[in-house]
Each structure stands twice: as structure tokens, then as C-alpha cells.
């Protein structure tokens, strides 16, 4: 049984500092349930799950999706998976964090640090092309009692390289759980990264994740995020553009039903131009689901030649589902091209009727149109070998979300 990297007192202090709904960035997402899980867990002695074996749910993912998988179980890095990494030019190492102190960054980053057992560092050396995606499988096996875990991944893609990554979050077990992840992705000059993040946790598990990307000169990021599971989920994606010629495309899809709460906050800081950041997030909501999309683009002074596009489209399939969508543009430069568009709606009745006149019943027609709405993001996802998995996952998830949505 491992223990927390920092003292219980430190953990308690960090949990007490978690943001509240009074803060603008957290207006729609209430972390008090996570603080409760944390305090209960601390009261019980803050024991971590063992993290020794890869649960079945994890090995299934490894078998299903072709990638060189690095596995983190209950916050502990599986060393065999590190040793198995044999792609030329790719290294995966464990970073000892036991002597580190809190960085006094955001409270969630501090919580990550306080919970962290060990860190993972992935480097792709210069002018290397990954032969298959580097997978990072983050799995928690919270059977009992409630617990917390953290993962930190530093990824360095050196100049001139082309690399692809899959970050997969999943879990098994029924107890309440909270997972905190921090990913720092650094793209060297002229490098290219394809990155797909998939979150498919159990319905009683919570997650906050923060991904920070810094783009080198003429580098390119193609990021796509899929959220299927979880109870309370908050993703922050921060894109920092400090070098000319950089291009970031980041798209996402969230499917939520029941009492799920999925919050995606993106922020692109354009510090120089020319550079571009384009994003499209789509959501499909049923039941009492509540989702948030907040896309912020800041064009700093002097960042002329910035091209920023934001789009967020939502399909609400129940009267009680709620989406809070907020595009934010802050522009302090003159020569910029910025646009944003947000839509919230139901399925197109004309299209439904058209499909019914071709023999599909109302339920089938709704399924077809909803899948097509989601598929638009799959087709933008940069790793082709994942498309079949994603299509099946979406189809299955929508099948269960849409049960009983026919009026």
C-alpha cells in the first residue's frame, strides 16, 4: 500500500482551496462533491488503491486499440509497460517526484502534485516519426472505498518530428472516485502532433484534467477529445502560441445523459502571429445532463495575423438537459481573423420526416441523425486507426442514452 506523496495536512489544505462556483471559470461546475470524496478519504487515512495489476477493463483497451501503451493504474505507473516501449526515437521514463514541493499553481494542479505517486515523461527525439500511436492508458480500479488518484505526463516532441498519441481514461468499480490528470505537451519547431483523448470512465467516477500545449515555430497540433463517461468531468485545454507559424486544431465531442456533468474549457493564447487556432466541439445531451463549453481565445497585443475560429454545436434530446455555451474572444491586435458560432437545438424535423418516408421508424431516424451529428467530429479526429473504435463506441453509447427519448 503506497501513501500520498505529501502529508495528509497538505492534502487537506489543498482540498480546502478548491475553486468554488463564485469564480468565473467555475460558475457552472461545482467541485464540492469532489471535496467531499477527498475529505472522506482523508478521514479514512488516505490510502491509495494498490495499483499493481492492470484491470481487465484496461487490458481490453490494450487489445482493442493498436498503440504502444504506457499504463498508469490507480496513479502508479506500470513499469513493465515502460520497459516494453521499443519504438526507435521514443523514450518513456518514470520521474521520481517524492522530493518535489507544491508549485502553488492552480488548486487543481496543486492537488495533482499532492496526490502524485510518480510522473511519466515521454520524449520523441528530433526528426522522428512514430510508427504507431503512443498510448497512455489511465485506469482506476476503485472497488472500495472511495478514493483519489493523480497522473502527470510530460510529453516532449522534438523539432521536425511527427508523433501521434492516444490518452485513454477509463475505470472499473462502483465506489466514488476522483482522478486528477495533468498533461504538458511541448511541440518543437516544425513538429506535428496528432492527439486523441478519450474519457470513458464509470458513471460514478469523477475527473478533472488539464492539458497544456506549447507550440514551437511552424509546429502543428491536431487534438480531438471524446467524453463518454464520468459523473462530474472537467477538462481544461490550454493552448499557448508564442511562436509564429503555429497551427492548433482542437475538436471535441461529449455525450451525456442521466445526471452527468461534462465541462470543457478551452483557452488559446495567441502571443504572436501569424498563427491559427481552430476548434469545434459538439455535444449530445439527454436526461438531466448538464454540459459546459467555454472557448476562450486571447489575441495578445502584436499578435497580428491571428486566425482563430470557434464553434460549438449541441443537440438537446430532452427537455431537462442543459448546456451552458460561452465563446469568449479578447482581441488586442489589429490584423486578425476571428469568428465564433454556437448552436443549441433539436433534431431537424424535415430530415426526420424524409428518413421516415424511406421506411425508417422515428426512433431509427433519430438514431441515424444523432450518429451523423457525432460522426462529424470523428471524421476530424486525426488518428484514422481509431475511427472504427470511436464509431462503435458512439453508436453504443447513443443507443443507451436515447432509450426512452421518443415522445
Amino acid at each position, binding site marked *: 500500500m503506497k501513501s500520498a506523496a505529501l502529508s495528509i495536512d497538505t492534502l487537506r489544505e489543498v482540498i480546502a482551496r478548491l475553486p468554488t462556483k463564485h469564480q468565473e471559470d467555475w460558475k457552472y461546475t461545482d467541485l464540492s462533491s469532489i471535496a467531499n470524496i477527498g475529505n472522506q478519504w482523508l478521514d479514512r487515512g488516505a490510502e491509495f488503491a494498490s495499483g499493481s495489476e492492470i484491470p481487465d477493463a484496461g487490458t481490453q483497451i490494450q487489445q482493442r486499440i493498436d498503440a504502444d501503451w504506457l499504463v498508469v493504474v490507480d496513479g502508479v505507473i506500470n513499469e513493465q509497460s515502460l520497459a516494453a516501449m521499443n519504438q526507435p526515437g521514443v523514450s518513456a521514463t518514470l520521474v521520481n517526484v517524492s522530493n518535489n514541493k507544491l508549485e502553488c499553481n492552480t488548486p487543481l494542479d496543486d492537488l495533482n502534485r499532492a496526490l502524485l505517486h510518480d510522473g511519466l515523461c515521454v520524449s520523441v527525439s528530433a526528426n522522428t516519426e512514430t510508427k504507431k500511436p503512443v498510448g497512455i492508458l489511465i485506469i482506476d480500479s476503485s472497488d472500495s472505498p472511495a478514493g483519489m488518484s493523480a497522473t502527470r505526463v510530460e510529453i516532449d516532441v522534438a523539432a521536425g518530428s511527427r508523433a501521434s498519441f492516444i490518452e485513454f481514461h477509463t475505470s472499473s468499480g462502483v465506489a466514488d472516485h476522483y482522478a486528477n490528470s495533468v498533461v504538458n505537451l511541448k511541440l518543437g519547431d516544425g513538429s506535428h502532433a496528432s492527439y486523441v483523448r478519450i474519457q470513458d470512465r464509470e458513471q460514478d467516477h469523477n475527473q478533472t484534467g488539464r492539458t497544456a500545449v506549447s507550440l514551437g515555430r511552424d509546429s502543428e497540433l491536431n487534438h480531438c477529445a471524446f467524453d463518454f463517461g464520468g459523473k462530474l468531468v472537467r477538462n481544461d485545454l490550454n493552448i499557448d502560441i508564442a511562436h509564429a507559424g503555429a497551427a492548433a486544431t482542437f475538436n471535441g465531442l461529449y455525450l451525456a445523459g442521466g445526471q452527468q456533468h461534462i465541462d470543457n474549457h478551452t483557452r488559446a493564447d495567441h502571443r504572436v502571429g501569424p498563427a491559427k487556432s481552430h476548434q469545434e466541439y459538439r455535444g449530445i445531451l439527454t436526461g438531466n445532463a448538464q454540459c459546459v463549453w467555454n472557448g476562450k481565445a486571447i489575441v495578445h497585443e502584436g499578435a497580428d495575423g491571428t486566425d482563430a475560429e470557434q464553434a460549438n454545436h449541441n443537440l438537446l434530446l430532452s427537455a431537462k438537459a442543459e448546456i451552458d455555451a460561452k465563446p469568449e474572444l479578447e482581441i488586442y491586435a489589429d490584423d486578425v481573423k476571428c469568428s465564433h458560432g454556437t448552436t443549441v437545438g433539436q433534431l431537424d424535423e424535415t430530415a426526420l420526416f424524409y428518413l421516415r*418516408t424511406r*421506411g425508417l421508424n422515428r426512433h431509427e431516424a433519430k438514431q441515424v441523425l444523432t450518429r451523423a451529428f457525432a460522426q462529424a467530429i470523428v471524421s476530424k479526429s486525426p488518428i484514422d486507426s481509431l475511427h472504427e473504435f470511436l464509431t462503435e463506441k458512439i453508436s453504443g453509447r447513443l443507443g443507451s442514452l436515447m432509450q426512452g427519448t421518443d415522445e
Partner: protein
Amino acid sequence: MLEINNLNASIGDSHILRGLSLNVSAGEVHAIMGPNGSGKSTLAQVIAGHDDYKVSSGTVNYKGQDLLQLEPEERAREGIFLGFQYPVEIPGVNNAYLLKAAVNAKRKHQGLEEIDAFEFLKLAKEKMAVLDMDPKFLNRGVNEGFSGGEKKRNEILQMAMLEPSLAILDETDSGLDIDALRAVAEGVNALRSPDRAIVLVTHYQRLLDYVEPDFVHVLSDGRIARSGDKSLALQLEEKGYDWVREAVNG
């Protein structure tokens, strides 16, 4: 096959069909003509089962069943096909997928086995050849980015695959250049058969040069003002719709 008796229908506050009666038998091709707003498209939508149109009185009998009691998809599976005036673009839904789903929905209803992928593709390519359609249209989104002519050909392709008993083509000729019109007409003629009825809803006589109707009806103010053979269409072309209105009112 289709017996419409004293049909009254409205959309919102507009009372559009006012006592329309029409009989269509197997093997016949009927043309329904009339000025804008006379109720041509409403008739097509009511037969297909659009929810927005409310039938206040009258009956529609199809193959001995009360058609108005059936859902749109049940009507389709029973062999009714509506070719849309404005075919709907459905991005992300593959054209081949929809064609196959439509064919299988009908086959399932008939107690037949689903069509296999090989057989389906062979059949689709045969039908596309008649319509002078590139097989790559199968892999596009349904009507997504299609030109007006391509959309109409796609409607006829769906009809050809579904082999309906009763096909209603709503302004299928509108917006077509001469090549597309010929291709569409060829597709319609290929489907003429003694056990099938076709109703062409059209504003112009032009299509009827290529698909010769057995009967021509002129709609005015929500009912049939005049019926005749194909010569009626020619008379209309010559004298215009005012002639019918005057004949009715006078």
C-alpha cells in the same frame, strides 16, 4: 390502388385541400398540374403522412387500407414513395447506408431476408447506370452538396431501389437541365409497369413530353378542376392556368 374521396386538409390556419377526389389504379400514370398554391404539394405531403398537415374530413384508401391511419414509415413499407420537391441534405449519413436501410426496412416488412452487401451494390450500380449517375455518389452524404439535378436523380435512384407500388413525384422536373430531365424521365419510364402507379406533380408540361401520362388533372383551389388525357396538358401550356380558373368560375 389509391382512392381519395372529398379530402379536406390544412396546414396551420390555411385550408388548402377543399374536397379533393381522385382515383388512381395500378398501371396508370397520372399527372397533377396546377398553378402555385393550388394544393399540389400538399396532396403529395398528405399522402406521404407529413404531421404538419391536418386532415379535417374525407378519406384516403390505399390497397384497401385507411391510409390516414398509417405512420409515414408504414406507408413507405407498404409501397408508397414520395419523391421530394426539395430533397433534404443529411450530412454525415452515407447515401449507400440510407438506400440499404430503406430497402431492408421494406424487405423486413414483407418478411424477406435483408439484402446482402454484394447484391445491394450490384443492384445500386445497375440503377445508377440508367440514371447516368456516378457510383461515387453512393459514398457521399445523402444529398450533401449535390446540385439540384443530382438531388433529383438521387430521388429517382431511391425510387428505383425501393420499387414502390405508388410513386408520387413532387415537382421532380423543376430546376433540371435537359440532360437531367431526360435521365430522370428514363428512370421513371423504366419503372412503368402494370402493377405500379405513378403520380407526377408538376407545374409545367415539359416532363410530360418524356413521360407520357394516361390522365392529366388540373388542380385549382384545392380540388380537381378538370381531368382529361395528355391533350389537356398541351391545352394548358397554350392557354395558361387562368383558362382553368375561368372555366371553373364561369
